C-alpha cells in the first residue's frame, strides 16, 4: 500500500526484504516515539506542576512529575492574582469581531477577484498579494500612531479595523472559488438574479470548507497574539489573555511561584486545547493545505 512496497521482488530476495522492512518499521517507530516523548513531556510536567501546591514558591528538588502536594489551590491563586477569566472573555470578544470582519472582507473580495471580471481586478490582486509580504513589525509603529491620532487606542477597534486587511484570506478564498464552476453565476445572471445576491445565495454555502479553515487560523492567531495588544491596550480591563498571562512573567532571574505560573498557563491553554482536541484532524489538514499555498 505504500510507495516503499517492492513491486517486482525476485523470489529469493523476498524473505530478507520482508524482515528488513519489519526491522526498519520498528526502528522508525522507536525514533518517532522518542521524538513524541520529547514533544509531550514539557506538557505533562506543566500540567502536573500546575496542581502542586508544594511548588508554589520554588521548584521542588528533585524535580518530579508527580505533585508533592496535589491541590487546586494553585488555580485559585492564579485566578485571584490576575483576572484571567475576564481576559479570556476579552479575547473571545476580540476573536469573534476579528473573525467576522476579516472573513467578510476575504470572502467578498476573494469571490469578486475569482468570478467577477471587473476592470482593475488584476491591480487589486497584486496590491493585496504584495502587502502579504510586509511584516507586521514594519507597520506597527505607524499603526500605533494612526490609532493614537483617531483616539481609538485602548478600544477593540485596534483589532477590528486592521482585520479588513486579511489578504491571505482573500488569496485562500480566491483559490477556493476558482475551483467552483463559473456557470452558476452566469446562469443566475441570465435568470435575472442580482450580482449582489449571487454570492450569498449560491457561492457562500459552497465555501464552508474554506470558511472553517479561516475561522480556525484566525482564532489561533488572535488568541496567541501578544505584540499588538501589548502596544495598543493600556487599560488592564481591556487586556487580552496573552497580556494577562504575560503578567505572570518575572524578569528578575529568580523565578517564583512555578506552580501558580503553570496553573495560569494551563488556564490560558484550555480553549485552544479544547479546539485542538475536537478539530485536531481538521486543523492539521488546514495547515497542510494552506501552508504550501502561502
Amino acid at each position, binding site marked *: 500500500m505504500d510507495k516503499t512496497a517492492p513491486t517486482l521482488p525476485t523470489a529469493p530476495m523476498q524473505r530478507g526484504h520482508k524482515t528488513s522492512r519489519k526491522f526498519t518499521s520498528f526502528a522508525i517507530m522507536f525514533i518517532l516515539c522518542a521524538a513524541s516523548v520529547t514533544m509531550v513531556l514539557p506538557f505533562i510536567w506543566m500540567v502536573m506542576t500546575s496542581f502542586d501546591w508544594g511548588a508554589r514558591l520554588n521548584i521542588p528538588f528533585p524535580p518530579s512529575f508527580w505533585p508533592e502536594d496535589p491541590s487546586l489551590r494553585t488555580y485559585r491563586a492564579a485566578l485571584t492574582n490576575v483576572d484571567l477569566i475576564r481576559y479570556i472573555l476579552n479575547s473571545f470578544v476580540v476573536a469573534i469581531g476579528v473573525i467576522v470582519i476579516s472573513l467578510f472582507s476575504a470572502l467578498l473580495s476573494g469571490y469578486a477577484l475569482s468570478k467577477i471580471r471587473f476592470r482593475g481586478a488584476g491591480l487589486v490582486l497584486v496590491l493585496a498579494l504584495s502587502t502579504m509580504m510586509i511584516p507586521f513589525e514594519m507597520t506597527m509603529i*505607524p499603526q500605533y500612531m494612526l490609532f493614537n491620532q483617531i483616539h481609538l487606542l485602548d478600544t477593540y477597534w485596534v483589532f477590528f479595523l486592521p482585520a479588513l486587511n486579511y489578504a491571505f484570506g482573500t488569496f485562500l478564498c480566491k483559490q477556493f472559488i476558482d475551483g467552483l464552476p463559473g456557470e452558476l453565476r452566469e446562469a443566475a445572471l*441570465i435568470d435575472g438574479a442580482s450580482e449582489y445576491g449571487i454570492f450569498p445565495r449560491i457561492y457562500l454555502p459552497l465555501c464552508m470548507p474554506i470558511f472553517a479553515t479561516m475561522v480556525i487560523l484566525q482564532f489561533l492567531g488572535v488568541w496567541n497574539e501578544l505584540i499588538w495588544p501589548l502596544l495598543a491596550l493600556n487599560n488592564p480591563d481591556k487586556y487580552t489573555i496573552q497580556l494577562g498571562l504575560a503578567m505572570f512573567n518575572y524578569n528578575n532571574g529568580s523565578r517564583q511561584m512555578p506552580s501558580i505560573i503553570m496553573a495560569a498557563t494551563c488556564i490560558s491553554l484550555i480553549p485552544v486545547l479544547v479546539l485542538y482536541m475536537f478539530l485536531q484532524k481538521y486543523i492539521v489538514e488546514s495547515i497542510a493545505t494552506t501552508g504550501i499555498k502561502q
Partner: protein
Amino acid sequence: MVSENAQTIAGQQTIAVRRKWLSSTDIAGWCFVLPLLVGVLGFSLYPMVSALLTSFHGNGAASAQWVGLTNYSRVLQDDLFWGALYNTIYIGGLSAILGIVFSFILASLVHHLPWQRTRNVFKAIFFLPNVVSAVATSLLFSLLFHPGKEGLINYALNWFGIDPVGWFTDPSIARLSVVFMILWSALGYNTIIFLAALQSVPREQYEAADIDGASALGKWRYITIPSLRPIFLFMIVMGVINGMKQFTNVWLIGGSAGNPSGALMTSVLYIYRNAFLSSQLGIATAASYLLFVFILLLTLVILRINSRNQLN
C-alpha cells in the same frame, strides 16, 4: 442599488453596458473588494508610507523637523543595532536550518509508516506545541530551563554528570536555548507541510527505482529530496522571514534589555525599545526599514542561489 436596472437587462445589454466607462459589473466588483481595499490602503500602505516619512524626521520633540538620512546613519553607527542584527540572524538562521532538517527527517519517517492511523497520531502529537502561544511557551521553558540544579533539564543532565547550565542566564548559551525553544514549538508546523508535500511526489519514480533495485535511503536522497526542492525553498524563505521577527519570546525571557547581557536583543526588540520606551520614532522607523530591506535582500539572494543551482 446602482446596478439594479442594469442587472435586470443584463442578458441582452452586456455588450452595450461594457462600452461605458464603468459597467455595472465593474461597480459590483469594486463594491465587493471595497472592505479589502480599505484595509490594505489604511493598514498596510498608509503605514508603510507614514513610516518612511517618520524615518526622515527628528525624534521626540523635534519630530516636525526634516533631518534627511540622519536617523539611518545613527542606526548604522549604533553598535546595539548590529549586535541585535547578529543575534537575530543567529537565532533566526539556526532555528530555520535546524527546523527544516529535523522536520524533514521526522516527516520522512512518519511518511514511511505503513499505517495511516499511526501516522495521524504522530502528526497530532508533533503539531500540538504549535497551538501553544509564545507567551505560554516562554513561561514553560523558563521553568524547564531553570538555571539551578532543580530545573528539569539540568536535573536530567546531572544523570550524565553534566553541571547545571545557565540556559537563559549565560549570555553564551541563551541564544541557543531560544533556538531549542523555537524548535520545540515550530517543528510540527514544518513537519505537517513536508508530509503534505511528500504525498505529492509521483509514485512512478519510486516504482522505477524499485525495479532498478534502489535502496530506501537511495530513493530518499535521489528522488524525494530533489522533487521537494520548491518546498525546501519555500520553507527556507519563510523560516528566514519568521526568524527575523522574533520578539515575544526574547522579550519575555530577557526583558526589553535583551538580557543576559544583550544576548537576546533582537532587531524587533531594538525597534520596540526605541519606539515605545525612549520614543525615538525616527530611529525606530529607520531601523524597521533597514530590517525590511535586509529581509528582502536575503530573500532575493536565496532565490538567486536557487535559480543558479537549478541551471547547473
